[in-house]
């Protein structure tokens, strides 16, 4: 099956193209300024450390999960192990029923997007309100995040005005700070009324039982402070060994994501409020999610895909993402990281084109704060896709084609003859620099598709071999 996205529409939409290009460009500039050698001299050393810590944690993951569980419990929290999104939703729905909870506020969590948590809760009439500004707009517009870090990157203030006036039944408002004020007021009411707060987690610290949230707006703090119950949903790969490791990861995450040495709020939470504390939730639950992660863990070479700290730098720097945007990828994780994890979660045959939608330029690996070798994994996935394809009969023609090609390549005379024939057929004799269409009898199937998007340089008057022979003759060799 080929790609199903609306690529042509995205490429033809000049406004959208400019929005993607500008937003990712700003994020690129921000990162560059904060990781420059003059500003952060040990940046490369930090990346190496981050990679080593993640590798160590994954290789000893059962140990750290148990240590995490012990420490969460020690601080009065509960750990809920979930095989999949169904387990997560079941637990939340059961708890909400027991506690007579009706309203949930959520801070931004890609993990909850991944398991369609809001939809699952809505099915049972439990309202979950997104409180990150971008996520809130998307929830009102019934859309999926466009980018891991900047979810509403594709929308303009005019789109937001339309969404707000339609869904909140208010007069149109196109000024961005006023729009933000509207969201603040609407969501503040939700925070004050909510029974349950659901957050994700950027890190889980085994040694202290703390979850760490890295945010800018303050909705993460409100979600974990105002409601009487706090639930954190996190994948098992989010664990790191000790508090001190945060000194490595926090220095990398904000810089790689938005070019901030630290984001506005870095919140660490371990368990419900303690005895003498005045505020904070009475109950704390950590929902640890597998949902395919152990499948990735089992592949020693591609296991590093689980090191990802979701900074989005690989998206910003990817020439493919910057053209096709976030909604043309098949899952909530877009860009290079989405291209390597989606096939591993869903199987390589579901979207076999995905690992091929890359120029392998390597920018993603260059900027990855935890040094995931994305291009290498893309190549491995391509091999897996091809191996899977070979088992299907449809590729016999392709194999025959390549056998023929190999045979010609091994016979220089035949190769030259092919070149002569090819250039005769293609040269239209009008002396133009580029060929924009093929002769009618060749203009079909993949060749037609290929030439419809590209111009082929016209064949040179003389081939390299011809020139070489003439040169040797002229030199009297």
């Amino acid at each position, binding site marked *: 099956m080929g790609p199903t996205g609306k690529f042509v529409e995205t490429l033809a939409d000049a406004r959208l193209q400019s929005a993607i290009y500008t937003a990712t460009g700003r994020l690129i500039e921000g990162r560059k300024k904060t990781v420059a050698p003059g500003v952060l001299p040990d940046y490369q050393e930090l990346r190496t450390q981050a990679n080593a810590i993640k590798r160590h944690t994954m290789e000893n993951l059962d140990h750290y999960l148990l240590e995490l569980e012990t420490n969460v419990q020690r601080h009065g929290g509960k750990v809920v192990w979930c095989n999949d999104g169904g387990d997560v939703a079941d637990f939340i729905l059961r708890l909400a029923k027991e506690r007579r909870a009706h309203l949930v506020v959520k801070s931004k969590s890609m993990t909850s997007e991944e398991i369609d948590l809001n939809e699952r809760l809505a099915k049972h009439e439990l309202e979950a309100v997104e409180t990150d*500004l971008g996520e809130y707009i998307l929830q009102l517009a019934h859309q999926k995040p466009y980018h891991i870090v900047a979810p509403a990157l594709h929308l303009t203030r005019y789109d937001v005005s339309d969404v707000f006036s339609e869904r909140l039944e208010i007069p149109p408002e196109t000024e961005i700070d006023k729009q933000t004020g509207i969201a603040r007021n609407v969501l503040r009411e939700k925070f004050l009324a909510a029974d349950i707060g659901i957050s994700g987690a950027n890190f889980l610290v085994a040694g202290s039982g703390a979850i760490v949230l890295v945010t800018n707006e303050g909705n993460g703090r409100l979600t974990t402070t105002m409601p009487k119950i706090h639930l954190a949903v996190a994948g098992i790969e989010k664990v790191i060994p000790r508090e001190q490791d945060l000194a490595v990861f926090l220095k990398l995450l904000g810089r790689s994501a938005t070019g901030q040495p630290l984001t506005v709020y870095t919140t660490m939470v371990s368990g419900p409020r303690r005895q003498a*504390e005045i505020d*904070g939730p009475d109950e704390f639950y950590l929902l640890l999610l597998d949902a395919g992660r152990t499948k990735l863990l089992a592949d020693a070479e591609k296991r590093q895909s689980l090191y990802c700290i979701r900074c989005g730098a690989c998206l910003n720097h990817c020439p493919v993402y910057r053209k096709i945007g976030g909604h043309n990828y098949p899952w909530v994780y877009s860009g290079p990281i989405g291209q390597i994890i989606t096939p591993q979660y869903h199987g390589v045959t579901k979207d076999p084109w995905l690992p091929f939608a890359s120029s392998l330029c390597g920018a993603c690996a260059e900027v990855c704060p935890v040094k995931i070798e994305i291009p290498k994994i893309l190549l491995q996935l391509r091999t897996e896709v091809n191996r899977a394809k070979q088992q299907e009969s449809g590729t016999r023609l392709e194999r025959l084609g390549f056998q023929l090609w190999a045979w010609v390549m091994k016979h220089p005379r035949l190769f030259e003859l092919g070149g002569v024939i090819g250039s005769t057929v293609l040269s239209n004799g009008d002396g133009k620099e580029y060929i924009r269409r093929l002769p009618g009898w060749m203009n079909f199937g993949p060749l037609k598709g290929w030439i419809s998007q590209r111009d082929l340089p016209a064949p040179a008057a003389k081939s390299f071999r011809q020139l070489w022979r003439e040169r040797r003759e002229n030199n009297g060799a």
Partner: protein
Amino acid sequence: MQRDDILQRVRTAIGRSAGQPAAEVPQARLRIPEMTSDERIELLLDNVRKLAGKTARVKSKQQAAEYAASLLAGRQAVASNAPFLAECGVTQLAGVVTGIENREQLREVTERADVGITAADYALADTGSLVMLSSHAEARMISLLPMVHLAILPAERILTGLDELYTLVPDAMERTSSMVLITGPSRTADIEQILVRGVHGPGEIHVVVVE
């Protein structure tokens, strides 16, 4: 049941057996630069200003209270139970409610207050951050709900950065259920990447260092 299934799958995936000790942990290297007290104060305040925060460096607690009084100018404020604020005389200022012990009352007062006044357990000079540990002295809501946050702290609580914090306080989570690093006013750039301050938390932050 899920617990054992997941742990079993993890162990199978990485080839470990139950109870097997973990390999040695790679050490995160923490480096603390040498900085004088004066350099720490200046770097902290400079970074807070770069984040659009307002700052003051004062010589006495009295002056800190004066700063607070002029910022309040008749507005309603809630102050945390931090002893340092009482020592400064900030809690006695007109319009300041303090000494709240109860969550519901705190919620009502902070929701209406224009300004939240706190101390800070630490500050990080190289990022311009306040470090707040939730406790009886420092409730979470005061630095979160009002539109303006004023933090007043003694100069000796300023650390160079994250590395010093984690060297000095490697076990903060033993002391509190919540530690937050606050780096500038609440902000978003979710619409057209245009920066807007005060989206959910305070849109205005003031940091006063008392020498």
